[in-house]
């Protein structure tokens, strides 16, 4: 039961400003993911929330109470570290019960709590082992178990899956989502992997260079990125960017001249756009369509066939674009291809990289994932 509020949190190390005034609200029971490239300040932000680092300025509030000066152990938070940070000289049981031991919880109660957490994570057979005798996935679960035992109001995760192999990562992702459901706790999760962010988050916070670029649900970020950075960061393969020139705008959107001379109308607001202005067209690979009559053309440089779908890397005059096509396309390397794009899924960015407001909202982008779930107390 906790709502976390960050007000103008800033952090300076010597002369470098790592965080530049972060404002954020994390609602009770929300799964919030901080995502961004390495060095964007996301881990520092998490450590400030944890109390391992102090903010240079700004306030940190839990349920309206300022906690800047509260010690890390007294904030009612638990953290799962990237390296798991298990105590190598203690058994799994002692690892999970260490916080209770420090809090002088009686042995019997301690044992019961550890057992309960071990049950949730299916760690019971491993309780007597030392961390060195565990696999990566098991260590990960012990680290989570150690957090669960503390019964925190907020769970903090610092890139917890980055040391696991790909298959295990998928499995742990599902397990974490299940845990979120089962524990009904607030979770804050840091990652550089946009797939983890997209699949688990109720709310994604995209950070770059110490600044929040955008906050929103996964579908909102995917369909309505507010700038070029978020557009390029969210989605895989990455969005393609093509230089275009504005011709004019009306109620249908902005008309632009495409590379190669064709024209198209993108349904975004033309406020402030003048004819002749240079813009950037952003289209995701999955929204580029092979089409004999398409306005764009290029030569295929590389083909990656994944079976179900095929990625075509097409060299245009001054750009290399990626097209996600059907698995059965018959094109070959060096082929000339023509293609078009779905106008209503395209984006336009101005000289500063800001997105021009879309004229239509995507229906899923307003959807909070949480509403999607069947919750026993929903609708109360």
């Amino acid at each position: 039961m906790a709502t976390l509020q960050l007000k103008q949190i800033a952090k300076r190390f010597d002369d470098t400003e790592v965080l530049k005034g972060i404002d954020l609200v994390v609602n009770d029971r929300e799964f919030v993911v901080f995502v961004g490239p390495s060095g964007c300040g996301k881990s520092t932000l998490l450590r400030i929330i944890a109390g391992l680092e102090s903010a240079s300025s700004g306030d940190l509030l839990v349920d309206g109470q300022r906690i800047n000066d509260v010690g890390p152990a007294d904030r009612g938070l638990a953290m799962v570290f990237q390296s798991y940070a298990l105590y190598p000289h203690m058994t799994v049981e002692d690892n999970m019960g260490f916080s209770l031991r420090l809090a002088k919880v009686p042995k019997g109660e301690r044992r019961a709590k550890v057992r309960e957490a071990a049950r949730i994570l299916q760690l019971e057979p491993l309780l007597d082992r030392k961390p060195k005798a565990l696999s990566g996935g098991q260590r990960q679960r012990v680290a989570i178990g150690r957090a669960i035992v503390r019964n925190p109001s907020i769970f903090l995760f610092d890139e917890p899956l980055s040391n696991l192999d790909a298959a295990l990562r998928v499995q742990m992702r599902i397990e974490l989502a299940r845990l979120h459901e089962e524990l009904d706790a607030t979770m804050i999760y840091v990652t550089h992997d946009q797939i983890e962010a997209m699949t688990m988050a109720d709310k994604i916070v995209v950070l770059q260079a110490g600044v929040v670029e955008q906050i929103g649900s996964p579908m909102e970020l995917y369909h309505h990125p507010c700038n070029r950075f978020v557009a390029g960061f969210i989605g895989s393969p990455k969005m393609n960017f093509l230089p275009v020139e504005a011709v004019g705008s009306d109620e249908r959107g902005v008309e632009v001249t495409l590379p190669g001379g064709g024209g198209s109308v993108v349904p975004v607001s033309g406020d402030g756009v003048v004819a002749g202005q240079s813009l950037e067209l952003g289209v995701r690979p999955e929204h580029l369509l092979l089409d004999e009559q398409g306005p764009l053309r290029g030569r295929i440089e590389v083909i990656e066939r994944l079976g179900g779908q095929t990625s075509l890397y097409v060299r245009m005059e001054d750009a290399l674009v990626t097209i996600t096509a059907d698995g059965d396309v018959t094109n070959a390397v060096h082929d000339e291809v023509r293609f078009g794009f779905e106008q209503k899924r395209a984006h336009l960015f101005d000289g500063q990289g800001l997105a021009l407001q879309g004229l239509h909202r995507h229906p899923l982008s307003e959807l909070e994932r949480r509403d999607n779930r069947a919750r026993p107390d929903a609708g109360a």
Partner: protein
Amino acid sequence: MRTRASGRTVGGLRSLSLQAPAVTLLLIWMLVPLGMTLWFSFQRYNLLMPGMERFAGWENYEYLLTDPALWSSMATTLVLVGSVLAISVIGGTLLAVLYQQDFFGQGVARVLAISPFFIMPTVSALVWKNMMMHPVNGVLAWFSGLFGLPAVDWFSNYPLLSIIIIVAWQWLPFALLILLTAMQSLDDDQVEAARMDGAGPLAVFFFITLPHLKRAISVVIMIQMIFLLTIFAEIYVTTSGGPGLATTNLAYLIYIRALLEFDVGGASAGGVIAIILANIVAIFLIRMVARNLDD
């Protein structure tokens, strides 16, 4: 939730209080004697003549710098340091390469070879002086007798060389220990890549091993210098600085001035010179360690 202001995030303050005892003690340990040495070096102060203390200006330095004993002891110091360094660094490097090879009983041999470093200097010096280098009953005399050669009276004829041998015997294993450890961090892939590129054993040594050891070698040189500049016990128990001044180094000269002649002023002036000498080396060593701290 308690809202106790724990101050745990105020790293600077906490860190200061934890370091305070160490820093304070070392500060006193450094500043007080250093200040006193400097002060005494400008005093006429002899323990045999109490009540005669007075300010002497540069007198002690003038006296010291015009004293042939100082220059002879400086020369002895330099010869001692230079030769021991040469022997231990060159020998240590070659031996490190040798002991790095795979041979029967490698581990035991290494341990035996570095052992002299752990022997207390008074023991090393006496064992060498008596049982090894004694002109009549020593092992070396017996050994040369086997070949019909006359025995060498080491300490009478070659006093400084004898000291050098003893000190080198102690410090060669130090160099070996450090360089062997440094060698273990040499990437086998690098050597194998060089082999694939057609490098023979000599080329591997000069182009791969030696550059890799460069830093360790310079550390060895500097640390040994600091210790070798003030070799004392080995001289104390074998030659007492003699015959004449043949084996009196700077450290021993100061000892003579201070505790045998009770000339506090003169000894302190000598001490200042020793400190200056050591600092010239120390500056380089500290710079190097500092660079190392960054990576």
